[in-house]
């Protein structure tokens, strides 16, 4: 486990006053046991990666590029979720690929409501089933695929580290 996870975990606002930094293991165990974490993945601190891992009962692999860190989670059923963390410790992009759609409420965090509202508005504007595409200045969501083979991504343009091409993340 990387030490910067522990630091950002202790920064986690809602838990900050309740736990000392030295009790990080207790925090981690408690977080694993929490039902739906209030913390976000997209736009949130890197700690949320571990929450996602617990929620998805997934395995986690971490790699580092020069300007960001990639956390790759493989959920039961082999859907792969990648969460991209900026040097500031924020999840600026998420991608997924595999037979099942991951839990968007968990992965999008505070952006979930905007996603759900936009998807709902598109349906109400014109009924029918089709991919979701949301192009807002500060939130992009795209997905596609069919049953047993889904792909998608979401990112926050303002949080993408300078010089990073969001179409070519590793």
């Amino acid at each position, binding site marked *: 486990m990387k030490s910067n996870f522990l630091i950002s975990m202790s920064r986690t606002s809602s838990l900050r006053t309740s736990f000392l930094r030295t009790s990080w293991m207790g925090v981690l165990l408690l977080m694993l046991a929490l039902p739906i974490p209030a913390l976000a993945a997209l736009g949130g601190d890197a700690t949320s990666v571990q929450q996602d891992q617990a929620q998805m009962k997934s395995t986690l692999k971490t790699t580092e590029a020069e300007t960001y860190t990639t956390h790759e989670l493989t959920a039961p059923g082999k859907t792969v979720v990648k969460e991209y963390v900026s040097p500031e410790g924020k999840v600026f992009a998420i991608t997924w690929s595999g037979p099942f759609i991951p839990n968007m409420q968990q992965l999008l965090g505070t952006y979930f409501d905007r996603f759900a509202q936009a998807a709902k508005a598109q349906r109400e504007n014109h009924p029918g089933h*089709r991919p979701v595409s949301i192009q807002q200045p500060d939130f992009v969501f795209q*997905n596609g695929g069919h049953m047993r083979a889904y792909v998608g991504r979401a990112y926050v343009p303002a949080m993408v580290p300078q010089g990073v091409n969001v179409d070519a993340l590793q």
Partner: protein
Amino acid sequence: MRSFLVLILVGTLGFLAGCGSSGTPVGVVTSITLTPSSASVDAGQSVNITASVANDSSGKGVSWSLTGAGTLSSQTTTGVTYTAPNPVTSISLPSVVATSIASSSVTASTPIVIAPAGTVANVAPISVDGGPLVPSTIYTNAAFVSVLLCAPSNGACQTIPNILVDTGSFGLRVLASEVTVPLSPLTDTNGNTLYDCVQFVDNSFLWGAVAPANIVVGAELAASTSVQIIANPSFSIPSGCSGTNEDTQLLLGANGILGVGPEPFDCGLACDPSAGGTAPAVYYLCGSGGSCSTTFVSCGALCSDANANQQVTNPVFNFPADNNGTILTLQAVNDVAATVPGSLTFGIGTESNNALPSTATLFTLNSADNFTTNFNGQALTGSFIDSGSNGIFFPQINNLPNICADNNSWYCPPTTTAYTATNVDPNNNSTSNTVNFSVDNFDTVTNANPNDAAFSNLAGPMGSGACSSSNTTACTFDWGLPFFYGRSVFTAIDGTTTPNGNGPFWAY
């Protein structure tokens, strides 16, 4: 997570109350096996049915009864003759029911398809007509079919119209609010009910119990096939099943979805107990108190599982014949049409009406059931044909075409724009077919034709930017329903054989 439990069908297999798992008391009838287990009979014709009763120590056999049209004759305690009426006036599914004389709670039935003379059994009419909410809401570019849904327990049947024909999913799902026949959900030996969570690409999900049903489409029968009863159960939906719950006709835009894509099962091996580890968030066992846990469910012989398949299953795969695929055909549309007639034909190369023409191009598929579409100078390796998508969807490149400001899921180019794309077999990288299509301004064409259901030139974004291993959303091309206008699209099911090769494949 609970360990896998073999699910039993309460009420139809006829286990006696109190037997449970402690073993069967000697001399108590446990089950009846009927031969044939299902049949198809022409007007005025007959079929002989025999019964074999397990553990019937007194040798009393069965008594016979009939639900639906026809007559029974030559009844004995081991056999009966069923004769269809003449003429038959409509497609229906009478059931011959055998009841154990020694133990009247044990029954079994043989459902029999009867159809009017001249019926082409393997063809179901379909229609792009706006769906069940017309005229208040028109579901554009969606093909609908009627399904005869019957309860195995008592033979009761109902016709459910306005079911979306979807080559992008697998299995039949119907709204509980539309179901009037008594379907019995699958349960485990502890009384937990089996539920299915299906998530679709538009952030919608369907949650509901899994129940075996006898399904007739055209005049073909899928007997005792697991369907999802889309419901809003009394207990909370697991957090792993998230999105917009499409549990009403208004939200779904249909009475159900008939998934006839290139797979037999909605989950397959990933949900079979042989997958090991944690079960994916697809099947759940839920107690009466409302607590749910993910579970594995067998997909049967095709998954090398000795237990019978109980996953939600593409009904075509369970037909006794014409079960290797489908042909979805729609009349051509010149930009806009009020409604469009078409057909869903069952089987590929199994009858005189379903041979693959020599002019067709056949594409085998990759492991994700995709082929490759070359478009805008890129090879989009995650491409597919999906009648359940109500437009053509492809990545936006260099900010073109323009995305509609009022609805980001559609393109709004200033004027109708022509495009070319080439579909390629992903396995030999050589078989190919070039498709020309056009993209209308969505706002303009739909506003100008508010009462029409068919639009051949509607398209929207699926991903953007350059296709890469980290931007796979931009490596997809979705040939949705408009692709079917003026075409016959063949979909061969994985695990089946055809005269043109093994499934899965697409051909058109």
